[in-house]
């Protein structure tokens, strides 16, 4: 039961992340939603490792999560740096202003 509920939680977090990316106007909020999605995926992998039959696969899963967390942090860092650069130029307070692809 527990594992199933936790799996449910992971899917719920992912769905919230998607909704956040689509709805939110501030780029910061969009990043947070992306981070949410990433964590949901991590949760799923951890749950899977716990259930795995072979120890090799399980440890592979945990190793992957280890690296993924670090990757997520690096991604956030770079993204925020980009955002800061955009803010300095005067653009990027709201994603609604980014209409360069129009037409």
């Amino acid at each position: 039961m527990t594992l199933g509920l936790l799996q449910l939680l992971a899917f719920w977090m992912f769905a919230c992340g998607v909704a956040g990316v689509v709805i939110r106007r501030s780029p910061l909020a969009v990043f947070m939603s992306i981070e949410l999605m990433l964590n949901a995926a991590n949760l799923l992998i951890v749950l899977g490792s716990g259930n795995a039959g072979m120890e090799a696969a399980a440890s592979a899963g945990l190793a992957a999560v280890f690296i993924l967390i670090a990757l997520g942090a690096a991604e956030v860092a770079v993204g925020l740096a980009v955002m800061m650069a955009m803010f300095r130029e005067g653009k990027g307070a709201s994603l609604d202003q980014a209409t360069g692809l129009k037409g």
Partner: protein
Amino acid sequence: MHPVIAALFLPLLGAVLVRAGAVRLVPSGAARLATAAVGLAHLFSWAAFFLMLSYAPGGRIHDLDLFPLMQIGEVGISFLLRWDPLSQIMLMVVTGVAFLIHLYSVSYMEGDDRYPYFFADLNLFVFSMVLLVLAGNFLLLFAGWELVGLCSYLLIGFWGAQPVAASAGLKAFVVNRIGDAGFIIAILMMAGTLGSLDYTGVFAGAPHVFLRGSGSALLLALLLFCGAMGKSAQFPLHVWLPDAMAGPTPVSALIHAATMVTAGVYLACRCQPLFELAPASLYFVAWVGAFTAVFAGTIALAQRDLKRILAYSTVSQLGLMFLAVGVGAHGAAMFHLFTHAFFKSLLFLGAGAVMHALGGELDVWKMGGLARPLKWTFWCFLAGALALAGAPLTAGFFSKDCILFAAFMAQPNGRALWLMGLAASALTGLYSFRAVWLVFGGTPRVKRAHEPHDPPALMRWPMAALAVLSLVAGFLWLPSWTHFGPFGRFLEPVLGLSGHYAPPRAEEAAMAFAVAAFLAGVGAAWGLYRRGAQTVKLVGGRLKPLHRVLFNKYWVDEVYRALVVKPLFRTAGRMESGIDRAGFDEAAEGTAGTALESSTEGRKWQTGHTGHYALAMALGAAGLAVLVYLVQTWVLP
């Protein structure tokens, strides 16, 4: 290498080189290169002649297989040349006359801004004509046939900026095409049933498939003659030749007097075995020839344009040649072809000289009194006219006499044909000397800007050479009682016996009639046209309706325009608006329009808002997820 091969390819080389270097060569360089190419080809033709003489008379027919060309089913075709007395004579005539005309053109075409291209085209023509006569199978013959048609189109329309010349070139090509349609069908018939297009194969196999006297043999022969009618301007496909006079005069001299138009006669002689399988076809040929001879002769009487008179004269003389073919006297036809090449091209060159002197004037009623200022031209022209009319002892006399006598002896309608031939001869005398007197005799009818003079040397000497030939070439085949006929004997291996099996006095009687016809024609011309044509003005008043008919060439062109050309244009117009514009253009533009409209609509989906794009991706992902679920649950198990 075999001289014949050199004679064939030298002019082609000349054409290619001149065309390639047209911009870089000085004009005189181009002319010299082209003339040298043809001159060398002529020398090679003499070499080939002596080579042929070294063989025994029976062993003079050779097939030279150069290389294989293609294999279509069971029909194998190679680049095959037939070298026998018939093609040898044609080769010498073509290259010789072409050489003289090249010399003439060096001077005549001087100053033209497309001067080098003229020589390139002339060379190409010589190559095409030589290919035609040297071909050893029907495919090469047809290739040469079409090529000369192309060169004719190019050369008639050489001054393409003038609409008259351009449309004349087109007319020549189109009318030729009509004849060629028959020719192509004949070739296909042969290829399909005989499995070979080589002369040897066809002539050997034809009697077994196209049985003598059968309908298929008749059809084959008539289709071949159809091609000949187009190329040699026989009624009713004669209409292109007078209009072809819009081209430069050397072109008229070479192509429309001496060589291309004689290709039809050559074809008839070459395909003699095929025509003999259908005797009825020979009747047809003879009657078409005789009719055309008289028909064209009458038209020539009323023409004002000097070159047109000569053009109709050519049509008429070609008719006589076909008359000879039709009565089985192929040798006589070739002999007349031979002599006609000389005096007709001479007459054209003379006309060119007159035009050159008068600044392009062609209307004979505006000429007159040119005998004294243009002495050289006058004497050469007179020689040509005498030969054309058949004055005794000239070349034309002997060749025409051959034909008339053969017609006289032919069965069953020989006498009728003979009478038509005589009438044509009388007409020839009449119109040719009408031309002579109107152009050279009497006093000038129109005030002239400056004093006319004889043309420069390069134009005079070819004329002189042709004049000499016109007078003496006839001695190559004297009437049979003299037993001197090297020309006829030379052609025997190909064309069969050329002797006239005649009762002893018959030939002299026929000759007398021929001379009488000549005198009648010339005498009438003398009476009507000397001294500024006062007599003809008196007589002409009463003959006005007849004159209108003749002047308008029996309205043949107008009939064609009404019956053929206008309906074709109307149909083409309807097809263009109905099928082309409504169908294809609409389809193409409609497709483009649809694409444009759909893309304009599609563009509206690109809003530029990231949120919209993210939503689209999310919706897509959602759709995929659903799909995966459905597949996993219901499709896979």
